[in-house]
């Protein structure tokens, strides 16, 4: 993981270049709806933004802090259900139903609060125990939502008021994605971010130096949960229908893990890159082999672990760190 600890004083361009490129890209994307594209193209772009945001959030806890969360979709589901319940079932004095903008931050807070409650005990667990505890939390939450029929509608789900506005959805997700990736970029350069990486590399060592590791882990977990919850809430609004099986779906977690891994765990730009690559890979597979789509995802995950464990960006930084990189280098040497 030597690629992640770069030289102490990189040049100004190196320090700010990433953010500048990001802002430029966002500005270009902001013009996109004015180029006369169809609603479905905007919808596709919005889906990519959702994936980028989710992968970046997962990376904060899974990649930077090294706590591989196999149940992160639980926060997505909680956000979606908070939105659904607030919009359809909470009669307030000043308005019959809460609106999208009122429910949105509440959904994020619900997810973050749950992250605090579940994180306090589970983030003390090390390695695979944390992963499995989160997987258990995820599956248990799906059952609990199914059982709480009076509030959540049980297996029949909830219908949200249909408000279809592809352009607004596009700009909302674009803004959220821009914010989250910029936040991750800032965290990665801040003392907070270096502390998270120290926790990943040597948690006991970090503790020895007087770092309150539990607090840092919980804050990272809560930030990741907050934005994942907001994405979930947005998704519920956009989809206008939620039930336990469409919201609490394992695939969502799998995608977050894979996108981060493909791009490079713990890097700022890896997960967004991985998200875009996987989306288009899925699109190709989806179009041609509809039924084998998830199977192909699983096989891709296995191949990634075996041949590209550091991800695309990680391998670019240090080719010798991956078997594929070593293979390429060996092939290159043979030609010389």
């Amino acid at each position, binding site marked *: 993981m030597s690629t992640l600890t770069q030289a102490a004083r990189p040049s100004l361009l190196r320090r700010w270049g990433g953010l500048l490129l990001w802002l430029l890209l966002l500005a270009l994307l902001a013009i996109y709806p004015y180029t006369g594209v169809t609603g479905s193209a905007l919808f596709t772009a919005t889906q990519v933004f959702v994936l980028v945001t989710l992968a970046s959030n997962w990376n904060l806890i899974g990649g930077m802090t090294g706590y591989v969360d196999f149940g992160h979709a639980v926060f997505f589901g909680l956000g979606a259900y908070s939105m659904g319940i607030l919009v359809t079932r909470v009669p307030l004095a000043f308005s019959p139903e809460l609106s999208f903008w009122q429910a949105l931050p509440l959904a994020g807070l619900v997810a973050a609060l749950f992250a605090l409650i579940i994180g306090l005990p589970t983030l003390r667990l090390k390695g695979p*125990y944390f992963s*499995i505890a989160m997987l*258990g939390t995820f599956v248990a939450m799906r059952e609990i939502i199914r059982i709480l029929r009076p509030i959540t509608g049980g297996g029949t789900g909830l219908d949200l008021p249909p408000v279809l506005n592809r352009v607004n959805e596009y700009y909302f997700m674009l803004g959220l994605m821009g914010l989250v990736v910029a936040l991750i970029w800032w965290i990665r350069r801040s003392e907070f971010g270096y502390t998270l990486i120290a926790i990943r590399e040597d948690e006991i060592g970090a503790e020895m130096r007087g770092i309150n590791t539990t607090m840092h882990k919980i804050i990272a977990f809560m930030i990741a949960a907050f934005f994942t919850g907001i994405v979930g809430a947005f998704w519920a609004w956009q989809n206008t229908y939620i039930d336990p099986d469409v919201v609490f779906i394992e695939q969502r977690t*799998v995608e977050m893990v894979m996108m981060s*891994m493909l791009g490079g765990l713990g890097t700022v730009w890896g997960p967004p890159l991985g998200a875009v690559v996987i989306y288009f890979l899925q699109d190709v597979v989806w179009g041609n082999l509809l039924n084998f789509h998830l199977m192909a995802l699983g096989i891709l995950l*296995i191949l990634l*672990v075996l041949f590209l464990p550091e991800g695309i960006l990680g391998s670019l930084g240090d080719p010798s760190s991956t078997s594929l990189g070593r293979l390429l280098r060996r092939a290159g040497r043979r030609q010389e």
Partner: protein
Amino acid sequence: MDQFLQALASGLLLGGFYAVMVLGFSIIWGVMGVINLAHGEFRMIGAYAAWALFRAFGLDPFASLVIILPVMFVVGYALQTILLNRVVERPHLMALLVTFGVSISLANLYKVIYSADPRSVPVSYNGSFELFGVTMPIVKTIIFFLALLIMGLLHTFLHHTRLGKSIRAAAQNKDAARIVGIEIHKVYAITAGICIALTAGAGAMLSPTQAIFPFMGPPFTLKAFTITALGGLGRIPGALLGGLLLGVTELMVATYVPGIGTNLGVAVSFVLLVVILIVRPQGLLGGLRPMEVE
């Protein structure tokens, strides 16, 4: 009181099945430190194999074990040789991700082959009998005693044969085992073969009592994890104790918590898992670390 006895008996029968189901998971984890997230999928494969054999040849699920066990041994051996041996000595996460990938691929492969419709194996003796006023389902009673037999055989194998001893040696100290000439990767492959065969066998045995569908796996993987956490790693008595505890707990909750039905029984085991991991990460019996196989 009758209700209590009934719940207790059903819980114990369920627990016996859980115990035999969890053995494969527990031993793979105990011997090579790999948490097999595809565990439930191999159980699903066993159940589908039993269903297919029953449909094509009218073969009884218990008789089909004669075919399923050797075939799945080869599958497990191949899985270990091709995939797991490559990641077994790398950080835990890698093996976790590989088995996660195997799990998704298998579940979706089976969805493509058999569709998502639930299947069932209607055996003729799928009834029940009365014992001291308690209703005992026949199939589950057979499974319970078969489970005890399998555990006894496995215990004997691990303790009194040369191969079994080398598996335990590999679990206790990999490097020392290498020094005395044990081929670790081969021992791992044989272990995986036995464990996958056992898991699929358990799936085949349960096929008469439960609907079979491609996505039945993950809850069982989590239950296996719960039971292992309850009973301790790679221990056969621990698997039995953990299985019985979980089985009885699930049935008791389903019986005495009104108005919610058996779904909560499933949720309870996951809540139990999270609680155990938090309160006693080393497992109730304190053996939850990749150390020894009794």
